[in-house]
């Protein structure tokens, strides 16, 4: 040991014991034992103790337990109210719960009580329920498991001594957005209203648009830990009963700990684990209502501003709500344009590689000379050039989403410079390739569904490679396998290419290009709705008169 070490060991600071943390393999779970106690006890102390343990009230800062005494028939009864701060409306609690309970404490059970006294616990729960709490939504619960769910979802729960029931009072006020504009499905003509993270606001929006008693919004709970509320919305007089049962069956049979978003639920209830979207995810209320009215089912997850629509077919992902709001000729044009965009986004780079490598005779000589001239100084083969550019484009796109918004423009400038001027000037890529990549990118953006455009972004690379390996033969092979794979996909029992493939399903109102609104008489036949027609044969009766 040298002198320096002796000096350092003697005079420098060193911790007495190094801190080491090892994650225990079998953590003891105290709360599990407490959960065995499932029924509310008439002894309020037991209930209080139980809830304090369950909710770790000593360390949980947002669990509020308010103890007080209420006087009923000259008898003081202990009571407490438990709720989660931040999830309830304090004003409502004060005025509709605490105020009546504390200020009306001299009220007797009924006016004749002095003449005919009754035991205090006689129908105590009914008395509190009917006379003491002027709140519109109250339920009584006996089981603690249900009480936990209520507290966790924002209810305030009242316990009263000598009463073996708890009063679950709905006075929710969960902070969050109450209204929002569509961010990802913007349209020119139509409602500028989108879903938010609050389930009840979302279901309220649907109710606001569909004023009909047949609209059913069923609440289900998913997740052992999170108990996330999931609302299943459908029209009881339209939607196929088997479809409703299937949707509920799938949601109710999810054995998971947590569900935090509709994206997770989408993956959990999809038929196939395919790269293509099988369920429509929309943030628009009007689009959701449109689908519900066509006989489909909307699923909304609490905490997620997206509704899931089932079943979905391929053409649904190429449509936008705007199509139906516009004159049908505009709608038709837009839909055909999107189909072309889809095909271009998938095949254009691959076909470019195939043609330039194998099938030069397809394009005019002048153009092929121009391409050859532009590529003269490029040291890489076409495949390297195009993959390089596509990856750069994808990176810029990804960075554009992740980057903080003040830097967003910078990414655009860097992207434009790198992709455009600099890459061409440095002879890394040819100008024609910039056009191809940019055009493909634009076409990709024209696809309304994010998941579908994502799938195409991946498949584009496959087609580029196949086009390079075997020209149009490679692309044909890729397309054939790709299509046969798509044929295996179904969404809640409906084939992905319905109504076009199989041909037997081409029926009334199944056209991808829109019919005029007065000719949209039938609902999609593949949905097997209870009411196949959506309007009368002559919908514009005023013309007949």
């Amino acid at each position, binding site marked *: 040991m040298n002198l320096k070490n002796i000096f350092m060991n003697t005079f420098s600071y060193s911790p007495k014991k190094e801190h080491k943390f090892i994650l225990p393999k079998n953590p003891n779970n105290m709360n599990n034992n407490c959960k065995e106690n499932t029924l509310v006890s008439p002894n309020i102390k037991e209930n209080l103790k139980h809830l304090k343990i369950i909710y770790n009230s000593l360390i949980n800062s947002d669990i509020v337990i308010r103890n007080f005494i209420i006087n009923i028939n000259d008898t003081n009864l202990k009571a407490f109210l438990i709720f989660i701060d931040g999830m309830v409306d304090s004003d409502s609690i004060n005025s509709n719960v605490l105020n009546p309970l504390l200020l009306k404490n001299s009220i007797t059970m009924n006016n004749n009580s002095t003449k005919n006294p009754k035991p205090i616990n006689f129908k105590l729960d009914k008395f509190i329920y009917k006379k003491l709490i002027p709140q519109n939504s109250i339920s009584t619960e006996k089981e603690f498991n249900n009480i936990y769910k209520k507290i966790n979802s924002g209810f305030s729960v009242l316990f009263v001594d000598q009463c073996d029931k708890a009063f679950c009072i709905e006075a929710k006020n969960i902070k969050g957005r109450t209204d929002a504009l569509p961010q990802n499905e913007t349209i020119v003509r139509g409602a500028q209203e989108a879903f938010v993270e609050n389930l009840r606001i979302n279901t309220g929006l649907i109710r606001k648009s569909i004023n009909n008693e047949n609209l059913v919004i069923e609440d289900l709970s998913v997740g052992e830990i999170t108990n996330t509320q999931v609302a299943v919305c459908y029209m009881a007089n339209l939607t196929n009963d088997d479809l409703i049962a299937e949707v509920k069956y799938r949601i109710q049979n999810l054995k998971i700990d947590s569900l935090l978003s509709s994206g997770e639920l989408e993956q959990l209830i999809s038929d196939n684990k395919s790269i293509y979207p099988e369920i429509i995810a929309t943030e628009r209320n009007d689009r959701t209502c449109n689908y519900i009215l066509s006989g489909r089912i909307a699923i909304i997850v609490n905490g997620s501003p997206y509704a899931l629509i089932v079943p979905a077919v391929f053409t649904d992902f190429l449509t936008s709500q705007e199509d139906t709001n516009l004159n049908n000729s505009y709608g038709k044009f837009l839909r055909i344009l999107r189909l072309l965009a889809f095909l271009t986004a998938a095949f254009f780079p691959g076909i470019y590689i195939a043609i330039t490598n194998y099938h030069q005779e397809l394009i005019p000589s002048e153009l092929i000379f121009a391409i050859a001239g532009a590529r003269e100084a490029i040291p890489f083969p076409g495949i390297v050039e195009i993959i390089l550019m596509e990856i750069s484009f994808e990176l810029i796109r990804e960075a554009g989403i992740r980057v903080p918004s003040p830097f967003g423009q910078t990414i655009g400038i860097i992207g434009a410079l790198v992709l455009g001027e600099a890459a061409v000037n440095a002879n890394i890529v040819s100008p024609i390739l910039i056009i191809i990549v940019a055009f493909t990118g634009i076409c990709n953006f024209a696809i309304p569904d994010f998941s579908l455009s994502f799938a195409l972004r991946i498949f584009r690379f496959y087609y580029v490679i196949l086009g390079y390996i075997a020209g149009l033969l490679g692309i044909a092979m890729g397309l054939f396998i790709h299509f046969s794979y798509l044929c*295996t996909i179904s969404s809640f029992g409906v084939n992905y290419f319905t109504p076009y493939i199989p041909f037997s399903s081409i029926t009334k109102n199944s056209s991808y290009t829109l019919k005029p609104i007065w000719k949209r008489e039938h609902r999609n036949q593949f949905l097997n709705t209870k009411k196949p027609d959506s309007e009368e044969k002559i919908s514009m009766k005023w013309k007949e008169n």
Partner: protein
Amino acid sequence: MDKKISKIEAICIFIMLFINTILLNAPQILIDNCKTGAFLNSIYIGILAFIFIIILNKIFKYFPSSDILDVSKFLGGNILRFIIGILFISILMLIICVSLAHFTILLKTIYFRNSPILFIIFFFIISAFICNLNGFGAVKKSICFYFPITVLTILIILQNQISNFNFTKITPFFGDSFENTFFKGTSNIFIFTNIILIYFLLPFLESDKSFKKITIISFFISWILLVFMVMIILNNYPFNNTISNVNPVYLLTRKVELSDFVQRSDALFIFIWILSYLSYITFFLYFITLIIKKIFTIENEKMIVYPVVPLIIGITYLLIRTNFYKFGSFELYKNLFNITVYIISLLILFFAGIKKKLI
């Protein structure tokens, strides 16, 4: 439900199979055999095939929802079913292998001069293999999906050539001789490959009642297409073209002018025909597995495709390497097809019908 075929789908499949036969080499075979008499021969064998289809319709009435294998079992038990199954497997294998050999050679000649032939074969077989693994639903949907565009290519060719049509080019109508056109030419009936489908169609149909309509409508459309294609090819290439590997239908596409932007559109046609041809071999591959499944009573038909695929690759490669695909295989296929499809199967149906009546 994916195992069933609707009326329209059945017609599409039936026609699609025949279009592929046309695109591969059917009109050329007629022209090689009958010279300018091919035009009359195509009409003549069409009438014969039509009579045959009517007979099949009559006999299959006694066997609802049954295919030829079920009928064979009814007549001669498992042994007869096995023999018939093997015969049909051989025909289907030959159809796939010979057509694959022709098509890959054509592609090699046109685009892939430097690529090994196995490379091209693999492209086709892997696609057919994967599609088969995806099940019958994927197979039938693929055929239906590519049907409209394939028909469109045929119509474009016909439309493009019809204005140049000169009747004198298809004369003399009897070709070499009357005998060649009508007596020897009878054997050309094997051109209607899609007739095989009739023997296996009934169990797939949603309703037996549509059987007659499907077979007759689809046969008529196929027949019309054949007659027109023979006329068009005769008009352009009236002489024997067997020596060159280039398909005459492909040569016709070189004459198609789509617009100024597309200089030569043949690559586009080839692209669509590759898709169409892929669905064709996929369909026959499915039927091979189906027959094997039935005669050996195997539960999972998807597993059968694994050993069949290497066999097809091997046979095709052998046919090409030995040049048997060009000369010998044709006669073998023709005789096997005619004997099995038009004679043995018909006799089985006939006797099975009598047996059924007696019972």
